[in-house]
């Protein structure tokens, strides 16, 4: 019960509402030792009547943030950079393991669970969204998203 309350509270805290795009359940992966990169996952919801894209991202914890995606062709996983991540009008786009993610390159220090990371998303309409995303290890991050959507 306590845990549930805490999770609801966390959901509220991690939801950031901008005029056009809402960000939910954002989290950044904790880094294993020796890995200078990480990835952020989140749910992007567009409650407006116009298509919007995320076109860039930045954070004080890493040198560069890039938008990346994955696909699997004949069992081979490919990861590559994309110019933008589209969120259709009145629709949503999920950034999740195995799909779209925001790649953190050149971390200034390792990311550990419990930490909060600042994140700024730049949208195609020029708007900027600032948010704080908690750092989670691989499994707790995946469980959280799982629980929220099924």
């Amino acid at each position: 019960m306590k845990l549930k309350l805490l999770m609801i509270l966390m959901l509220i805290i991690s939801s950031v509402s901008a005029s056009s795009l809402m960000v939910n359940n954002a989290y950044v992966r904790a880094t294993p030792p020796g890995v200078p990169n990480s990835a952020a996952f989140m749910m992007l919801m567009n409650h407006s009547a116009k298509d919007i894209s995320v076109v860039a991202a930045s954070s004080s914890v890493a040198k560069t943030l890039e938008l990346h995606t994955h696909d699997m062709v004949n069992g081979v996983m490919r990861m590559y950079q994309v110019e933008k991540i589209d969120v259709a009008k009145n629709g949503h786009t999920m950034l999740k393991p195995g799909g779209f993610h925001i790649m953190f390159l050149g971390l200034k220090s390792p990311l550990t669970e419990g930490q909060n990371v600042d994140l700024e998303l730049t949208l195609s309409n020029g708007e900027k969204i600032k948010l704080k995303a908690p750092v989670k290890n691989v499994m707790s991050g995946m469980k959280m998203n799982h629980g929220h959507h099924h």
Partner: protein
Amino acid sequence: MSSKVIKTFLFAFLALGVLFVGVKVTKPMFEEHRDAVRYKFNLETVDGPITQEDFKGKVVALYFGYMYCPDVCPTSLSSLSEALKTLPQEEQENFKGLFVSVDPKRDSLEHLKGYAAYFHKNFIGATIDDEKYLHELTERYGGYFRKVALEGSKMGYSVNHTSDIFLFDKNGNYSSKIPHMARQEDIIKALRKAEGR
């Protein structure tokens, strides 16, 4: 029918029988040998070189990946670790996880050790500074990897790769392959099968 024809038939029948039994007995032996050749490896760790022989008595879960992989590799290694952690502590000691980096240019042996152990204390990291060998090795396993330049990305290059976990029993014989994003209960089933339970 003459007795000669009957004799010939009988002989042919017996010969087929002998052949059948022979195949039944030698086929597993043959397969074992073929698998042993197919899956053998010579790799380096920060604690010294390793081959499949070094893991006799342990169930081995082998995965090819690279440390810069932000998503797919950690997900696979975590799924394996989480499945393993559902087993009793002493049973977990039957297992060794082996993370084989196909990116020796970026992944040092020292970093690989810490990286693998981050997921489970029984996981070790290995590679070899010989990309030709790594290609040959992954292909023998029925896997694949390729470095792909990421134009304009600070990452420089990404590595396209297959994401399966290969399981070997305590005698080093191939047991099964866990596909990417397998469900936890299926991973546990595969682990138990490799254990001979």
